[in-house]
């Protein structure tokens, strides 16, 4: 069942610069969706538009969440519907401690599973448990990323929007995070993520989109994209394995789409 339907939205910066050009996509419930794309493709813009952080955007088009129109709503309202967004800059409260940040993640929750959720995230990110009283600003980049993810998970979202969740994570942790994501997806959370680490992303995603300059240029199941030649070249960096060892080639091959 589709949970999120975006149909031909247009988002502009300064009322002049188009970042999204009539983009449409669908996200089905309880699945993981990955959006890939080069710098400046508008991936971040897409997630921000959905979560309502761009004022008065999208200019055109509709966004539907579980049958309810949510475009141009205030971010609080959108968030209360169960959409949680982890932005590129992680959106942490730097002057608060780790514990306080996590507590804020539970805002509005009154169920009894908070405790088990805490255990889940501490098991996933043991370092956070060591750092509960530390001010967020002093955490390392990766630790901040973990905290942001943990806080988002504590909210038990219906739809989780992740902007580059593996950014700055060590390879081992990144894999663990992805395992955890599949796990919470199975437990009932839909995930829409923007990711550059295509290999990891495609390994857990059910479906994925490739976005360039504000449009979806390619979509398909993870497997299909994985086998696509251009995707392999540009996103999975396959060719690099076979590239001549003597140096790096600056190539700008034309894409077939």
């Amino acid at each position, binding site marked *: 069942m589709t949970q999120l339907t975006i149909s031909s939205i247009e988002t502009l910066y300064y009322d002049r610069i188009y970042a999204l050009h009539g983009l449409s996509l669908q996200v089905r419930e309880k699945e993981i969706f990955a959006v890939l794309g080069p*710098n400046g493709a508008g991936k971040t813009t897409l997630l921000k538009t959905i979560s309502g952080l761009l004022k008065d955007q999208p200019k055109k088009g509709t966004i539907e969440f579980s049958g309810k129109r949510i475009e141009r709503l205030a971010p609080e309202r959108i968030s209360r519907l169960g959409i949680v967004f982890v932005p590129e800059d992680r959106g942490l409260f730097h002057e608060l401690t780790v514990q306080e940040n996590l507590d804020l993640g539970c805002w509005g929750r009154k169920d009894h599973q908070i405790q088990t959720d805490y255990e889940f995230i501490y098991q996933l990110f043991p370092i956070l448990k060591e750092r509960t009283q530390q001010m967020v600003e002093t955490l390392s980049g990766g630790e901040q990323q973990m905290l942001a993810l943990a806080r988002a998970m504590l909210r038990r979202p219906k739809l989780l929007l992740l902007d580059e969740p593996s950014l700055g994570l060590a390879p081992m942790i*990144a894999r663990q995070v992805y395992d955890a994501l599949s796990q919470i997806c199975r437990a009932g959370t839909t995930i829409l993520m923007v990711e550059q680490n295509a290999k990891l992303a495609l390994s857990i995603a059910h479906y994925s989109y490739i976005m360039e300059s504000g449009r979806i240029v390619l979509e398909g199941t993870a497997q299909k994209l994985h086998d696509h030649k251009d995707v392999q070249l540009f996103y999975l960096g396959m060719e690099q394995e076979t590239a001549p060892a003597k140096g790096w080639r600056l190539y700008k091959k034309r894409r077939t789409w």
Partner: protein
Amino acid sequence: MADICPWNHLRFINPISKIMALLEVSGLSINFGGIQALTDIAFTVEREEILGLIGPNGSGKTTLFNCISGVYTPDKGDIMFAGENLRRFSPDTIACKGVARTFQNLRLFLNMTVLDNLLLGRHIKFAKNPFHALLRIRSEELRHRRIVEEIIEFLDLQPFRQNRVADCPYGVQKRIEMGRALAMEPLLLLLDEPIAGLTAEEKQETAYYITEIRGRYKTAILLVEHDLRIAFKLADRMIALNYGSEIAQGDPKEVQQTPAVIKAYLGEE
């Protein structure tokens, strides 16, 4: 792109330092209210060398950078750079000595244009004559402008030249920051996760830039990176940290195979 580096002839080469390593860190330790972020770190960086720095999250890589660039003062240890101990210097003096860095969470001047950001990189090289500022004598400005334009060309930043940095996509911001560091004509460049958050294609581009920087500008580079495929390719040597102490050092291949590194960092593949 001009073939010869425009500023190579300006470089002051200390005859003694020719035999010495460019950077020699020894016994470096720092502690933040109970958290031992670095313990007794020692390593050297030679001229024109790329040294890879890896380690799990929170292992102290950025802290090490902060110590070298003077943002933190280490509790113990020495940082010898071209014959001088940087330990007690302020960040701006260290910058003048020829150490440039980028940041993990970008620290650009968001409200300025890309061009101005790069020109700020040239700040230490300006002949600072207040009368030039007051009387609008712009010869100095033009001279640096030329160098900056070359960097812009080199890093493919032309489309963003006059854009406000805040409006540029994340990947471009990373490149701008690298350009800003490069504009300082550093002897040693500290790069903190320069390729995080890029697509494979862009990663390779950046990797290309990094080798080119070393090749053309004769800069030594200290590189933090979590994408190991690239890191192992780029680095001449490598050092791995865990919980603030060194767990392996040496040839990338060997480091990759050290059990401690696999356990703490890579995980079983």
